[in-house]
């Protein structure tokens, strides 16, 4: 056995290989936003807010046949061990793009020509798998904003540590593991809307890893539905 999985098959945080980290989802805590959601996933603490549909600025960006979706994924300077400069890094620019594409697949963009929709994701504390948690929260914020969607998007990562496939990598596993593969999935439509991977897998291992990730996404999808239900039917009236 390696250093990331012990003799009992337990991971550094005590989980079994196919367990998600403890998570918490909340809806609608930002009053100015049209929709908002908060997720804790392990040590990840992420807020997502949605503004729109609204007018497009600058106007030359208008799409005559559909909605323009904008997305910003940003990590707070204090969200990581060593202070991160607030300016967007290349990593954040790429992640903003893949998150936008993962969410856009679920939105009925053709219903809102000539409008814009802003999706803001702020990582307050970062752990492994922050892009997956961001997508899970942002999709929930879209639902909270009442944006018409084909399905919700839930996301998590799979990886390989000490030669074994594991679900939902934490920080150490992400940094020291052999493979990291984030996946976003719309369970009702059976569509993958984000898929990235780095590290080496055989074709057979890849298939097993993808199946494991989809199981994680389905669990989070149920949690998203519960968070929405709790928000609209069980929360105390203000």
């Amino acid at each position: 056995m390696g250093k990331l999985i012990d003799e009992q098959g337990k991971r550094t945080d005590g989980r079994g290989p196919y367990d998600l980290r403890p998570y918490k989802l909340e809806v609608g805590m930002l009053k100015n936003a049209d929709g908002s959601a908060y997720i804790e996933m392990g040590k990840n603490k992420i807020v997502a807010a949605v503004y729109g549909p609204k007018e497009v600025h600058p106007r030359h960006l208008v799409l005559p046949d559909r909605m323009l979706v904008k997305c910003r994924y940003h990590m707070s300077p204090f969200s990581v061990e060593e202070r991160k400069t607030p300016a967007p890094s290349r990593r954040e620019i790429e992640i903003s793009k893949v998150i936008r594409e993962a969410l856009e697949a679920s939105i009925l963009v053709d219903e809102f020509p000539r409008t814009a929709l802003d999706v803001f994701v702020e990582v307050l504390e970062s752990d492994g798998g922050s892009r997956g948690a961001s997508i899970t929260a942002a999709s929930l914020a879209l639902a909270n904003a009442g944006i018409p969607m084909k399905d919700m998007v839930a996301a998590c990562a799979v990886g390989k540590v000490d030669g074994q496939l594991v679900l939902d990598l934490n920080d150490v596993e992400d940094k020291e593991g052999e493979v990291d593969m984030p996946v976003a999935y719309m369970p009702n439509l059976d569509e993958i809307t984000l898929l990235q991977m780095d590290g080496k897998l055989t074709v057979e291992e890849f298939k097993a890893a993808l199946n494991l990730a989809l199981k994680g996404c389905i669990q989070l999808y149920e949690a998203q539905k519960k968070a929405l239900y709790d928000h609209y039917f069980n929360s105390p009236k203000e």
Partner: protein
Amino acid sequence: MSISRKNFVVERLRKEKLMELLAKGQRLDGRGLRDYRPLSISTQMVSKAEGSAQVYLGNTAVIAGVKTSLDRPYRDTPDRGNLIVNAEFLPLASPYIELGPPNENAIELARVVDRGIRESGMVDMSKLVVKAGETVYSIFVDINVLNIDGNLLDASSYAAVAALVTAKLPEYVLSDGGTPARTGNTIQLPITTIPVSITAAKIGEYALYDPTEEEEAVMDTRLTMAFTEDGICALQKGGSGGWSPAEVMKLVEESFEKAKEIREQIRRGLGLGGQGETDQGTGS
């Protein structure tokens, strides 16, 4: 901020014709769904670069250059050299390029090419160390896009790989005083494998390899996969649509085989022999 892709009007008008062809297993340029365009690779055309390669994939043209310098290693990898990949869409590459710092597409391009090379272990970075913890080689790969006609990801990856394989860098050793000194010799990079990038676009229910600009304009989504001889080493889905899990699994399986074909083409283009002769000495 990342924003939605613009729609191309003419390409969308031609989509109907494209869909008719796809149903018959054909494409607008006469290819089958699983065919790549002709690939041509020329190397070492820039004498002041340590390595250079120009790749044509149909009408898509990119040139990659390799430069090196001695630097401190990154703190989390004190005993490894540094690899830095950057990409630029030159304004001469298309009528639609706007000048400015690299946008999200250029950044994604560089990072996906980087991932394919890095994760494959193509260059044994542990051999690019002059003094552990203090002085290592930094290998800079700069990709210039010269003409855009779709599938920049694969073309750029092939160019970067070709430039790295053929690069010759100045050799440094530690002098008696413990400072790095040039020997006057050149060394080749320690190459262990040739990673191959394979990109498929999904249009309707069809998956087609090596999409042209016109096909990319109407695609629902895209998947870029990088393969070593043994399996898959990097993935990037792009575009605002989705793939079903069954489609992804079938595609990865088929693309692993396609990658072997393309790897042979790259090896031939680089004048390398058959399988198993990839290893090149470091000279260090």
